[in-house]
């Protein structure tokens, strides 16, 4: 994944709570075997509505999504993260998120920012007042700013996620460095495996 230090861009307020991953990318899109091209499916059932916020000319090209509580709940589909990023979003700001969605985002470099509900509402209002305002999400200093409006809030990321974002580290590459520890664990703890249970055709022996 690419390193992320600062996300700077216009924002779009999606003032809805409980936006689940079925809404972010409907299941019809999950049949594909590729990792790209999901941006067209983002919020696809809502985008037919010309008044939907993403369809408003003011918000075209935004890179920061501001959402309500519990964004990304439901299905584990990482396609939701792929769709958001393919569309152009680089950071999501909300009062809370689904756990699996947060994990998936961290693997792809999508920055997850948790702010209090009141702060999210202030931020949404600032953007609604003037959609040209730039939002700055600084992963290094753990701060969200709207410089033009004097808005400034700190946020929390677990130290490992922050390091990985800043350095663009490949998680698997890091774990493979622990080969000795993994092999040692495997030689001492023996949970049952599937060895010997199924024949080559998958039938129980």
């Amino acid at each position, binding site marked *: 994944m690419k390193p992320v230090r600062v996300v700077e861009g216009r924002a779009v307020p999606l003032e809805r709570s*409980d936006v689940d991953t*079925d809404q972010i990318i409907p*299941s019809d899109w*999950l049949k594909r075997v590729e990792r790209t091209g999901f941006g067209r499916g983002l919020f696809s059932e809502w985008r037919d509505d010309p008044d939907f916020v993403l369809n408003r000319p003011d918000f075209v090209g935004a890179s920061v999504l501001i959402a309500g509580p*519990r964004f990304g709940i439901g299905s584990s*589909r*990482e396609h939701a*993260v792929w769709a958001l990023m393919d569309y152009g979003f680089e950071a999501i700001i909300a009062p809370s998120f689904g756990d699996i969605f947060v994990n998936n985002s961290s693997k792809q470099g999508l920055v997850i920012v948790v702010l209090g509900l009141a702060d999210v509402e202030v931020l949404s209002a600032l953007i609604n007042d003037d959609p040209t305002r730039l939002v700055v999400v600084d992963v290094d200093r753990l701060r969200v700013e709207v410089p033009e409006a004097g808005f400034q809030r700190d946020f929390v990321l677990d130290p490992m996620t922050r390091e990985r974002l800043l350095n663009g580290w490949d998680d698997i590459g890091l774990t*493979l460095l622990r080969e000795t520890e993994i092999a040692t664990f495997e030689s001492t703890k023996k949970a049952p495996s599937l060895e010997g249970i199924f024949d080559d055709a998958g039938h129980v022996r």
Partner: protein
Amino acid sequence: MPTGRTLFEKIWQDHVIEAPGEQSLLYIDLHLVHEVTSPQAFESLRLNGRGVRRPERTLATADHNVPTDPISTPVSDPVSRRQLEALEENCEEFGITVFPRGHENQGIVHVIGPELGVTQPGMTIVCGDSHTSTHGAFGALAFGIGTSEVEHVLATQTLPQQKAKSMAVTLEGNVRPGVSAKDIALAIVATLGTGGGAGHVIEYRGDAIRDLSMEGRMTVCNMSIEAGARAGLVAVDDTTIEYLRTRPSVPQGDEFEAAATRWRTFVSDDHATFDDEVVLRAEDIVPSITWGTNPAQVVSLDGVIPSPDAIVDPDEKSTTERSLAYMGLTPGTPVRSIPIDVVFIGSCTNSRIEDLRVAASLAQGRHVAEGVRALVVPGSHRVKRQAESEGLDQVFLDAGFEWREPGCSMCLGMNPDQLGNEMRCASTSNRNFEGRQGRGGRTHLVSPAVAAASAVMGRFASPEELS
């Protein structure tokens, strides 16, 4: 004061390889794979020249997008067909056992793991599917992961994980007759809300949980994610051991008894403490139904559609208004007066033999109401064969239900089993999100008993209403 460890703590400690900081490296005993969340992971392994570390700890099945038409019918959707072929090709290339469409062991990944006995107490189990929490019914730490994590487990058999907090959800007392595991699950989700379990592993406790069969415990653990919790757990007891005893993948004879002795240690110690505790009175739980577009929007079958007028919180008020508009419902309407178009009995929540027996007992000698389409989709070929050996298929067919091939089917509508626009469905699945079962479809989550009774009545109904 004496201290003890929770069940979660025991499994966690057993599997930590190292814990250098806030994230621990966790060993994964069993990785379940299906066609939808794996192709990009396998592709990435290939691009990076990486292999699968432990094929013998990996098991794959087709489930999410398989059609439920007769197996002799080819998969007509070329995109689905390609994905199913990719699963078989990837598993062959990397040496993984796979159950393709029509295989005798094929079925919904969370149905086949337990019924084959590959799901065992004390294990860590992951799958690229949020309903992996189902396997927690066996006292296993089981949770859903995304495709990048699928790739990570394939390559390393481990996952870096931040340790969750523990939550005890205790059901005090006993449920009343006619209250099912699904009603318990809906009551818990309604109590916690869609985010109440976030960051936690829930252990379900109390007599009402102990009294459940393994099928019932799976239903409850299955819906942990609907309350935001990645994993749910139930402590091992005689019910767990007896369910496992006859499964094909467990050790036999003395070895089974030795395993059972070890499995029995997977309970929370008497003096264990939890980060959070929630208590529900089991006798307060009633047959229930979801009315809205998230699984915490639950109302009694005897109730009426709620009104947004009395809601003070502006966010909750607008959510309620949006849900009512999407669902095409008017506040104050009695639930039992609402007509339905479709009934779906299936999914990893309620497609096991016990669920089908309950539904069949109500369908017996009755008929699906005119204008209602009712589908029964067994969770696996093993469930299907068992049901057919008991004659349940004929009961359903005689009553006007469709008896279909196994798969996830209309739970998420990736295959041709979908709701049309504004169609209203009584569904035994787990999610009532907008468009979940088909674009514009209106999903109400119910138990198998309520689904079967509603099919007969053509509106939401309880078994007691059937003459």
